């Protein structure tokens, strides 16, 4: 997907004025956080499980090469194939080549963020293979030619009226006077349309929530069952996953599963958690005849050993965006690339470069809510600050801001000068303030700030001056 992250400010501005989006976001803000709270309220061990989850992933990251090799060995032992891809281009090509070898015309797809990351759909289409999204939300946005706006609820930015409109436009073989007012009828219509596609597909592509080193299994988690029909019915199952999805054992996967659904949707478990190992066995009556795993790096090895390593613990639950005031105000599309919200503000610059992500690390109020709900205890605000520093070093922040901060830094390093200027500024502002009734509703160079609030005017003397005066008075007394 083409990134528009560098225009976050404009994107956000548009989002705030979009009435459909704002109504959809209202529903999200009311839904996810409460359901998460209810679910973890019923599990007293939740905090300890977070700590444990963090440790499991840290252990994996420290030994990632060893676990990957073991994982690969077990996939092969089970009759599957592992393909390594450094870049999105390599990953796309591997998948296209597999489709060609299998003579595949249509590919059903379970929800995978990695496929978005490598822009798989467009590439397959350009090369004559038709990709069909099967997750309801993904199906809707594919019909609308839109990117997902949330990592677990891709169509969360849409109202049911918009979905109805799309279905009427696309499902033209159905009676025009059918009733599609309720979500129920929309779900039923999508189910019927997609059932046919499932049965006809040649290849099924899914992502993976976890890859298990011990068994060579890939794990997918869904509520709809679309991922399962995607991987069971076609002749081949291709798993597209990034390197850091590895966990050592079935027990480790279980430990993380206890965190995933509770943090994501507030369920104890998602409806379908499926462990797939190799192709169907000789005696199996169903299942895919071939099983391939494409392991994508795309910049992740470079995050290891850096201040962004901890981001690789992410299990893509979406809790950080569900609780983020910025995401809640502007939605996912404003972030301009595949991963929105706080996790996106860290991951996007890591994967496509800070030059292309520009203001994303600033898309935060630093309220700290994301870190406090993250099941893997990822210090998201700290990492956004790292990026702000880099952005500064690379001279990517706006010129006025740079000038202001530099001036401030120059003075702050020279206390006598600082006091001198500060005292003057306080007096001048104080004088001006008395004229305007004690506060400013407009200040030069701070127009954006005063557009929505007034700045109280200083009293005419700085804190330091007053402090010194008081100390003197004390001594005198």
């Amino acid at each position, binding site marked *: 997907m083409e990134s528009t992250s560098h225009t976050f400010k404009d994107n956000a501005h548009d989002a705030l004025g979009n009435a459909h989006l704002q109504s959809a976001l209202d529903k999200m803000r009311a839904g996810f956080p409460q359901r998460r709270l209810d679910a973890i309220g019923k599990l007293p061990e939740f905090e300890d499980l977070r700590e444990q989850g963090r440790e499991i992933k840290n252990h994996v990251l420290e030994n990632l090469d060893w676990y990957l090799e073991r994982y690969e060995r077990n996939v092969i032992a089970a009759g599957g194939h592992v393909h390594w891809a450094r870049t999105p281009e390599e990953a796309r090509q591997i998948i296209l080549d597999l489709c060609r070898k299998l003579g595949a015309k249509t590919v059903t797809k379970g929800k995978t963020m990695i496929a978005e990351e490598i822009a798989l759909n467009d590439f397959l289409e350009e090369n004559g293979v038709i990709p069909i999204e099967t*997750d309801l939300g993904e199906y809707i946005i594919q019909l609308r030619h839109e990117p997902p706006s949330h990592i677990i609820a891709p169509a969360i930015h849409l109202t049911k009226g918009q979905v109805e409109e799309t279905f009427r436009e696309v499902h033209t073989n159905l009676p025009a006077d059918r009733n599609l007012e309720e979500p129920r009828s929309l779900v039923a219509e999508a189910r019927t349309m997609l059932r046919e596609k499932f049965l006809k597909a040649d290849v099924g592509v899914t992502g993976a929530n976890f890859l298990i080193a011990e068994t060579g299994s890939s794990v997918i988690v869904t509520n709809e069952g679309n991922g399962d*029909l995607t991987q069971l019915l076609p002749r081949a199952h291709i798993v597209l996953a990034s390197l850091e999805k590895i966990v050592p054992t*079935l027990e480790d996967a279980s430990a993380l599963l206890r965190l995933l659904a509770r943090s994501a949707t507030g369920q104890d478990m998602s409806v*379908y*958690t499926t*462990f797939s190992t190799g192709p*169907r066995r000789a005696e199996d009556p169903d299942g895919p005849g071939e099983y391939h795993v494409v392991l994508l790096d795309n910049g992740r*090895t470079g995050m290891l050993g850096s201040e962004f390593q901890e981001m690789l613990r992410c299990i893509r639950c979406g809790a950080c965006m569900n609780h983020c005031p910025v995401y809640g105000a502007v939605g996912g599309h404003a972030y301009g690339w595949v991963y929105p919200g706080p996790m996106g503000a860290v991951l996007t610059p890591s994967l496509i470069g800070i030059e292309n992500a520009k203001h994303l690390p600033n898309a935060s109020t630093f309220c700290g809510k994301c870190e406090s709900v993250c099941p893997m205890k990822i210090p998201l605000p700290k990492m956004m600050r790292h990026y702000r520093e880099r952005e500064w070093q690379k001279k990517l922040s706006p010129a006025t801001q740079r000038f202001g901060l530099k001036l401030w830094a120059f003075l702050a390093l020279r206390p006598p000068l600082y006091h001198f200027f500060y005292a003057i500024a306080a007096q001048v502002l104080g004088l001006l303030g008395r004229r305007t009734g004690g506060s400013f509703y407009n200040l030069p160079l701070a127009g954006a700030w005063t557009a929505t609030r007034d700045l109280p005017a200083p009293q005419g003397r700085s804190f330091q001056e007053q402090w010194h005066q008081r100390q003197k008075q004390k001594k005198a007394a």
Partner: protein
Amino acid sequence: MSARDDILGGIRRSLKRGALGGERAAQLEGRLANHPSGIIPRRSQGLDRKGQTALFEEQAVEIATTIERVASLRDVPKAVADYLQRFNLPAEFAATPDPLLDKVPWNERPLLKLKRGKPSPTDAVGLSVGFCGIAETGTLMMLSGPDNPSTMNFLPDDHIVVLPASRIVGPMEEAWQKLRQAKGGTAVAATMPRTVNFITGPSRTGDIEQKLEMGAHGPRRQHILIVEDDSIA
């Protein structure tokens, strides 16, 4: 350099070390061999058979699964017939080849017609046997194989599952233990079935305005018959 070598080399460079060997590799090997369990939720621990069955039922009902307890396999035909009648479903339905279903006296309900094997896309109802039930979350564990085609878990609109109470365990870890034992010890890698399904309730989606709707792609309803007869393994 191949992508594989490049990636593995990149990881080692980033972690500022070479390939792991010696003691460190032996430790990792040991961790896989022991596959230690971590924190297990207290609610699923230390329960007897009755407690486990009760917890399983309580959790399953919460996620919109329906449960009926029957005393023995002899009661299964009536329970199935009643269910089909309640929802006005056809008397002919798909059923897996699982040998446990051979022990059910189906002839007592001559109107019921079982089509043994994997389901066809038009089958409205499917009947399977559960490998085990996980009380912690009311989850069914289903294994693929000649006895239980995985498509039965997804294609029919109504999924009925026969689950002996003796197969209900506490937490997820005990379910893995059961699989490891069933497959003869701890070397689960070589004997893992192609598909292990954890199923926690009927299919659903919240993708349209976060309103929960059942039956997105998998079964709209899930019904579990718990067979309390202790003599069934």
